[in-house]
């Protein structure tokens, strides 16, 4: 698309917003529509848009296939690891209640401006923390799989 300077500029303007929107969907998924699956697809769509406009080599410099490959497995590992962590902490597999108040969830006193008593928590409930981690894993896997599929199709040389 070298002959379309306007599309190139517009894409350059839009991509940060798309990535931001993907993060919003990922982390706001507990409160509104959204979640790991959707965020993963949107993130991958942003990367694919970059690849469509600037060409595959440029995209592969941004997201090297070697790294994306590993992310496929990493997401699933985060998901399963959350379950294992629950087991190690004494609960059942994927029983998020035992994650409660275990991991860095306490708000430091210096920035604790919330009304009410005592130290507050970033993620007050184990359920919220567990769902957050699980959705993160799903998001990473979906992003990586979609990007990798795109690489596989786009990198294919057409035969006669």
């Amino acid at each position: 698309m070298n002959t379309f300077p306007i599309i190139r500029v517009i894409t350059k303007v839009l991509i940060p917003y798309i990535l931001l929107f993907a993060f919003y969907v990922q982390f706001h998924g507990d409160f509104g529509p959204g979640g790991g699956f959707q965020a993963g697809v949107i993130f991958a769509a942003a990367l694919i848009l970059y690849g469509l406009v600037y060409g595959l080599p440029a995209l592969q410099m941004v997201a090297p296939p070697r790294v994306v490959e590993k992310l496929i497995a990493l997401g699933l590992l985060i998901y399963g690891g959350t379950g294992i962590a629950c087991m190690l902490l004494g609960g059942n597999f994927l029983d998020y209640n035992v994650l409660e108040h275990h991991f860095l969830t306490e708000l430091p006193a210096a920035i604790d401006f919330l009304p009410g008593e005592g130290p507050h928590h970033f993620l007050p409930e184990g359920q919220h923390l567990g769902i957050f981690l699980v959705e993160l894993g799903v998001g990473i896997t979906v992003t990586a799989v979609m990007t990798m599929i795109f690489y596989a199709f786009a990198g294919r040389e057409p035969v006669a």
Partner: protein
Amino acid sequence: MLVEHALVATAVAILTTMTLALIRAMLGPTIFDRVLALNMFGTKTVLLICVVGFLTERTDFLDLALLYSLMNFIGMVALLRFSQFGGFGDSKDGSPVKPEAQG
């Protein structure tokens, strides 16, 4: 004269426009006519989502409209890309350019 009536009227108008765009997409004749109709159809869907969101008073669903407009653009770029170059071979217009090379 409730605003709801205006919203329903707007939704019906948008749906009419969507129908017209769909007819153009079916008629063709060139591929560019179809892509133009698709682009217009996508924009109208975004508007329809906005109006329906206000009509059902769940305006937090405007995220969806945002997503639709993004997907519309991405689909549009993909259609252009494949209709112009027939794939990823950038060979016709020179070697692939680094992102820094052009604004």
